[in-house]
């Protein structure tokens, strides 16, 4: 217990432990310069342990059924943003086209900047993940990963790679940018899996 600290009252039950509601703010946290990507040359790939490696252009990915998310997002730096809307393509649809092999168990997500992040395959299937290009009914702002980012809202937001370029399917775990630097391999905010060992 910290002397003299009482904390806030009326805490929203949608906030995982250690998180606060950022309200209408949406903090921007990136480790690299913001890239400015042209949708005319933008592509998204699914490669690695798949039977049918596939690449989509901006127009091609927009031909897929639009998948929507409404809910809450949680950043490891302790802000959460409630009631947000994203739309894009379901990762289920992308993986169905590429057909992961029987031994596939993990993914390493890549960004156009060179950023990477790793996730268990189970965390990006079953309606849990999108490649999102729409936020709150408009284009996803470049500061927040536009033209398109991964969206895995049930995990800490560094897993939702900005400026996403593709998913490498793997039959083993390979750590990404923050994970190599001590952050958790899974990152469940309800279990406070912030750093390795949590």
């Amino acid at each position: 217990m910290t002397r003299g600290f009482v904390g806030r009252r009326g805490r929203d039950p949608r906030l995982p432990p250690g998180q606060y509601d950022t309200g209408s703010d949406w903090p921007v946290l990136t480790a690299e310069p913001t890239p400015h990507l042209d949708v005319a040359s933008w592509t998204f790939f699914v490669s690695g342990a798949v039977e049918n490696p596939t690449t989509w252009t901006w127009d091609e990915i927009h031909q897929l059924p639009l998948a929507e998310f409404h809910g809450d997002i949680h950043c490891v730096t302790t802000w959460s943003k409630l009631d947000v809307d994203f739309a894009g393509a379901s990762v289920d649809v992308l993986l169905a086209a590429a057909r992961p092999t029987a031994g596939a168990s993990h993914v390493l997500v890549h960004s156009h900047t060179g950023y990477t992040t790793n996730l268990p395959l189970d965390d990006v299937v079953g309606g849990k993940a999108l490649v999102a290009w729409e936020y709150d009914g408009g284009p996803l702002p470049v500061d927040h990963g536009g033209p398109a980012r991964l969206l895995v809202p049930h995990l800490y937001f560094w897993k939702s790679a900005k400026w996403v370029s593709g998913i490498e399917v793997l039959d083993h775990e390979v750590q990404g940018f923050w994970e190599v630097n001590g952050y958790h391999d899974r990152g469940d905010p309800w279990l406070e899996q912030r750093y390795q060992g949590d």
Partner: protein
Amino acid sequence: MPDPSPWQAATIVDIHRETRTATTFRLALERPVLHRAGQHYVVRLTAPDGYTAQRSYSVASAPDATGTIELTVEELPDGEVSGYLHEVAEVGDTLEVRGPIGGWFVWDGDEPAVLVGGGSGVVPLMSMLRHARRSGRADLVRLVVSIRHAEDLYYTEEIQGPETTVITTREPWPATGRAAGHLSAGDLPPVPDDATVYVCGSNGFADAATALLEASGVAPRRIRVERFGATT
């Protein structure tokens, strides 16, 4: 690399004001860990009912053997943790901390570095500058710090020196006579080919600084950014 340390107790042994809104807290660690310049700690406060609030703060002090670290904290409007630290915390109080954390925005003192900080973004860069000076390698480091008014400068006398350029956006900087204005290409030192550039500040500052650096030919992969603040 080793996992970040678990939570430990840290006792406040010194508090001093940097500016009207920023304060430096020197913490004695129960289990001292040598940090790398640029790393941060998480500070966690716990209420009697078990409610916790935690925030990350960069270490301002150089890596050293004192068993203490200095965190400089900007008091934010309605800041739950920064407000507590400014209004309630006293020397002798114990906080829970976790760290050091971060393996990207770090400088180990053995290669050239250009440091570009806006406002409170100077904190991790100050750790790097102190590390460089203490190890006799100040020649490796150039620091540019942008503030609004002269009175907003952290580490006032210590930060100044041959490595440091201070620019002010709202009034001229008395020491050089530079006119008030935002960071421009002319304020940036030459970036050696083997240097890494560390940019820390608000989103607006970080975007502006990286754009200037890229326009002057610095490859994006050589620029490391730590930013804070929000878009709405």
